[in-house]
């Protein structure tokens, strides 16, 4: 039984490059996420510390993790799109 894609996917010369970048960014985010878990588990009192306009570290760190994911995603998309256009002779259909 064949398992080919539902829609025809064009060959992408940039996929290895994108995968490497993806892994790097994954580890970056992972480290920051683990930092949050680490503080919550091993230094919970630190979470009460006010850091921005009287709001504590727990809230700011939590929201920052969400915002950082969005920013990182947008950056990744921008860089990947650029690389795809560079490395693939014909632009992939959307």
């Amino acid at each position, binding site marked *: *039984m*064949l*398992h*080919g*894609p*539902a*829609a025809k*996917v*064009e060959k*992408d010369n940039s*996929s*290895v490059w*994108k*995968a490497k970048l*993806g*892994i790097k*960014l*994954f580890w970056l*985010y*992972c480290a920051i*996420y683990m930092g*949050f*878990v680490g503080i*919550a*588990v*091993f230094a*919970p009192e630190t*979470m*009460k510390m*006010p850091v*921005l*306009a*009287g*709001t*504590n570290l*727990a*809230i700011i760190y*939590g*929201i920052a*993790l*969400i*915002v950082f*994911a*969005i920013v*990182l*995603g*947008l950056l*990744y*998309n921008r860089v*990947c*799109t650029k690389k*795809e256009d560079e490395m693939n002779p014909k632009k*992939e*259909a*959307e």
Partner: protein
Amino acid sequence: MNYIANPIAIAIFLAFVGFVLGMSFYYARKAKSASGYFAAGGNIHWFVNGIAFAGDYLSAASFLGICGMIATMGYDGFLYSIGYLAGWIVALFVVAEPMKRLGKYTFTDALDSKFNSKGIQLMAAISTLAVSLFYLIPQMVGAGSLITPLLGLPQWMGVVMVGAIVITIVATAGMTSTTYVQFLKGGLLIIFSTLLSVAVLHRGLSTEPRPETFSPQTMAMADATPAAEISDGKSGLTFVKLEADGISNWWIKRGDMLEEVQSVTKTAGGETLYNGAPKGDNKFKSVGLVAKLPDGQVKTGPVGVFKYFATIQGSEIVRYPAGKVAKLEVGGDHVELYCPETTKGEDLMVPGQKFKTKDGIGKLNFISLMLALFFGTASLPHILIRYYTVPSQRAARKSTIVAIASIGFFYVLTLFMGLGAMTLGVIDVADGNMSAPLLAKAFSPVLFAIISAIAFATVLGTVSGLIVAASGAVAHDLMDNYMNVSMTDQQKVKAGKIAAVVVGVIAIILGILFQGMNVSFLVGWAFAVAASANLPSIIMLLFWKNTTAKGIAWSIGVGMVSALGIILTSPDMYAQYGLDKTTALHGLNQPGIVSIPLSFIVLVVVSLITQKENEGLQDIR
């Protein structure tokens, strides 16, 4: 609480359901081929797909469960928001594009793309079914809890209604109608949650209870003539029963003073009384109160985002934690007393009310939960199949980013909705899950009707996605690939539709059986099972060229069985069985920290033993 059906709510709800069903029938003609049915023909626009991701992902557990947990437990509910969103990073950076490149209709396709192995087909299909069913139960339970306040119907009818509507959506037009239902619901959920959050900030904080909120009276013990006085061994509190005008109510003894509590009494005669009166008398009220604001303020007026958080940190809040319910037997009556607890805002705004990290096992459970949430998203079959509805890898990536942005924005809003419910006194003391819709009720009945209809749609959207995933696992992975049942394209669609009906009926039955259970309860576990069973195979297939078919099949099997095994023997599950928590086989409530590494190890070991099988296979990375 006593809920009365609201005609506006019913009208909005019916209009919504009618629209959704109409759309399903409209798209039904597009779903004639297997590609159309299982993957919407692979031509959904990336933006629509991205919002549909949000609609698929933001289930009852997010909207009802997280808001409810923040409302009753504070920051710990927000941990789910953080973890659920962080999981999308794994989806975006690691699995989105390869999944799109390798698969056809289901994630089993992608796993099996290199090997064409019966073992992988069987194990991956079973894990898809197991995770989907685990995920379905809380959605159905959530639907049941929503129907009661919205339409005034019993819970089981809500479950049956959701089941029937979803079966119709899925069986008529498969992934196409499912996608548009999810798009619609995802968009509406985000818009109206924003409105609700703005309303919370505009109202600010106040120590004056609303008339609908329970505000406990106090009196001197010397002035009271107790009809009964009972000490509860478990909570260490003493309760006093007072009677006036034939109505009895309960008070907590605090030194020389008495403080009123809310009670639910099941009398020996089979009658249920709320604060001593029948349900229709509406004596039982919603809870949650600001006891003290910083600097002796009574009211803040409209506040900004940071000011809101900082003010709650400096306040004292009266909460009714689920664990603080005293159960007494008094002369044949069974009495449940909901005890208030005043907590400092600074303690509520950090982790620790639900997930205690003081001892070793607490730390382990916390890390384990955060690990499962992080790695679970990218392993959920109903999320993974959405990569097959878009035309290209680029579209898969873009739709993932739209999903991250919209879901992330929503998760920040859960803080305002949860804390708003906590401080505005709208919490149903017996069911925290309803906090977000009831918060809307505090502002306007129309907003409540809309939010409830959206919450109901939330369940519809997610359940549809789960049923499509499960029906794909049965018709495509098991029947077509594993059993080699020879089917034409149309027969395959028919098999998918029959599978959808069967899974839908099973979901209805489970939804009724698990009534009253917390909706976040099982979802966290579904993540753990998904992360343990599926993630190691996905990652290793993509990044380790020595991965073999047997390695993948064993890793899925061991990951799934170990995660389920740990869950079924956990202290929380013992409590569900009605047994003593302390007699559980181990102290771990969250399996991820054991089962995820175990699944990785099994994959590596089995792959190394069966290296010969890989000879002559093409590297798919």
